[in-house]
């Protein structure tokens, strides 16, 4: 178990995979993807704040039909998933796959074309969703023409990555490569199930496909590509070899097998067969296996390196993300249990849980990656370490404020719902302080996004350090 492995892998030759070979890489595609995704993070952050504000001031923008909660929520969700997180992860994949293979990206022009197409998709969503062009399935709201473009872009991404891996210099593939390949393959099927196959079904059957997609959008798209990034940057940023190759295999293959079974846990107690609910619960509990093996591997890798955490921004973001991963993936199996589910299902606990996964964990990984690769791709220093620290703490405090108040509020809400003598509206009014804290936590997180955007842009443009940044330092 405790075999000491090089970051590359067990083989001595493969460890070269993580040695710098910057000169051969152009990184044009990675730069395009990262810069545009960080910009969308900021834009969609404004939408996020707006919808959080609507819970506190329900009349806000109330007379504009394009800006109601029902129109902006899909823009927030799709904007964060497909405008920020996925393209940021893809940008990082375009950076790290060639380095792990010791070769140039297979086709840089194809990569740039993919980035342009991706921007068209996101801009299309920004226009079409507020107009109410919503297919009506969660996470799969994007209108059909955009779905087709997503599939095309994904195939272009897949070809480029697989072709790069096909001509790799090192025979053995590092864990990050498995996760990226897994993500590309599974996403193709999961995305088509959630966006196309649903058309051929109705009612419960359709909902089952929809939840299979929603659950695996997180479990088989954002989890593997996020873990690929963490597996790359934890050994890289800490300078320590990955603790165990074997454990990483256990983690990967158990994820590949277990995740897809759990979709029906979104309909526990609902109009879907009880036996299918039981299967989903059983496999949801088994999710602890891939999660705990991965987290143990990361923590064991950090052993003896924890002193680096304070001054190392990418490491700080990644390891906090790992802790949030552990927490969110403990919540998941626990609220799949029928008894717990009867309290928290459909409450504000759920957005608290979802945000810890996608913001607290996977966005933290992507932010860590951006802090690490952007200065290196542009052959410069990070504009300001102090600002990066501000960014971290704004996200951390805002994030915790958001998650913790929603969990507590969600439990409270669920208990009230389960007492039918309390009128429903009283349970809404009771949650107002929770939503107010959520809004102000959102303000802090938006501060984090703004700092992040500014720091990255200033790094890219190489502008001289501002007086403010120096004072903060």
């Amino acid at each position, binding site marked *: 178990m405790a075999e000491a492995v090089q970051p590359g892998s067990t083989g001595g030759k493969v460890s070269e995979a993580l040695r710098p070979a910057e000169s051969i890489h152009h990184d044009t595609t990675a730069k395009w993807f990262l810069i545009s995704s960080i910009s969308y993070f900021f834009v969609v952050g404004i939408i996020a704040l707006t919808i959080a504000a609507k819970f506190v001031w329900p009349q806000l923008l109330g007379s504009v039909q394009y800006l109601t909660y029902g*129109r902006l*929520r899909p823009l927030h969700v799709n904007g964060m998933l497909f405008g920020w997180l996925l393209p940021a992860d893809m940008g990082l994949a375009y950076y790290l796959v060639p380095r792990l293979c010791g070769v140039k990206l297979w086709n840089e022009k194809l990569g740039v074309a993919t980035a342009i197409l991706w921007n068209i998709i996101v801009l299309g969503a920004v226009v079409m969703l507020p107009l109410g062009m919503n297919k009506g399935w969660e996470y799969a709201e994007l209108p059909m023409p955009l779905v087709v473009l997503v599939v095309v872009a994904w195939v272009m991404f897949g070809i480029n990555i*697989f072709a790069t891996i096909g001509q790799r210099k090192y025979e053995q593939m590092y864990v990050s490569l498995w996760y990226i390949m897994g993500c590309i393959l*599974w996403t193709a099927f999961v995305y088509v199930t959630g966006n196309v196959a649903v058309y051929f079904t109705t009612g*419960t059957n359709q909902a089952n496909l929809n939840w299979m997609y929603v659950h695996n959008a997180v479990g088989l798209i954002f989890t593997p590509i996020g873990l690929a990034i963490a597996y790359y940057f934890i050994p890289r940023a800490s300078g320590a070899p990955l603790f165990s190759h074997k454990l990483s295999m256990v983690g990967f293959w158990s994820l590949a097998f277990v995740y897809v079974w759990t979709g029906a846990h979104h309909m526990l107690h*609902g109009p879907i067969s009880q036996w299918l609910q039981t299967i989903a619960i059983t496999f949801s509990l088994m999710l602890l296996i891939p999660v705990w093996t991965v987290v143990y591997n990361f923590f064991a890798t950090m052993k003896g390196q924890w002193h680096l955490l304070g001054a190392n921004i990418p490491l700080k973001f990644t390891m906090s993300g790992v802790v949030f991963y552990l927490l969110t993936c403990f919540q998941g199996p626990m609220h799949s249990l029928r008894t717990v589910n009867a309290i928290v299902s459909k409450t504000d606990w759920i957005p608290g849980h979802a945000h810890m996964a996608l913001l607290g964990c996977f966005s933290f990984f992507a932010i860590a990656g951006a802090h690490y690769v952007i200065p290196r791709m542009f052959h410069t220093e990070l504009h300001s370490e102090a600002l990066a620290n501000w960014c971290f703490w704004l996200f951390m405090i805002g994030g915790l404020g958001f998650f913790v108040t929603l969990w507590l509020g969600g439990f409270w809400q669920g208990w009230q719902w389960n007492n039918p003598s309390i009128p429903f509206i009283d349970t*809404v009014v009771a949650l107002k302080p929770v939503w107010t804290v959520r809004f102000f936590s959102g303000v802090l997180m938006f501060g984090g996004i703004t700092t992040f955007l500014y720091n990255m842009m200033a790094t890219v443009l190489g502008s001289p350090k501002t007086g403010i940044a120096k004072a903060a330092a």
Partner: protein
Amino acid sequence: MLGKTDKSAIGFVVAALIFFFIGGLLTTVVPPMVDKSWSKPFENNDPSKGPTGKLRPYTELELKGRAIYVKEGCWYCHTQQTRTIYADTIRYGWKGVPSPISTPDEFVYDTPHMFGTKRTGPDLSRVGGKYDTQWHRTHFRNPRDLVKGSVMPPFPWIVDNPDDFTALVAYIQTLGRAKNWRPDNDYEK
């Protein structure tokens, strides 16, 4: 066997897809073949087996109303399922009559399905026939005029368009009505 997949990309692809498709097929393709109630519309004429009634397809007007429900994102805050939880049946019942538990056969004509995941507002699985048209008109114009403390957005542009408003209300009045669950048949128009 899996030990070799980190050296062979093709071996890896095959293994990753097999692992995925075992669970993928068993949980999506197989269940509707096993449980026929997913595709057979609700129909019951025997009161001893629970509420009687028959699920009928939506009319054109109701479908138009449903499209508005989808477009405005009502489903982000309102679920449509009375779950197998005692409090759900009481809370979403009416005048002392508990709401029957939602079953798959009541949703056979629903696409996109509107089960929902989040209850910011109350569940709507049995809202059909609870409130009349005038109530809905006032409520859509400004929910807080009728329900103090509500956080629902106002929808004046729906009320101001008689076609849209009539269609949406027609759809809402169908919700949960396949089962004749109110013995006095005291449904509102």
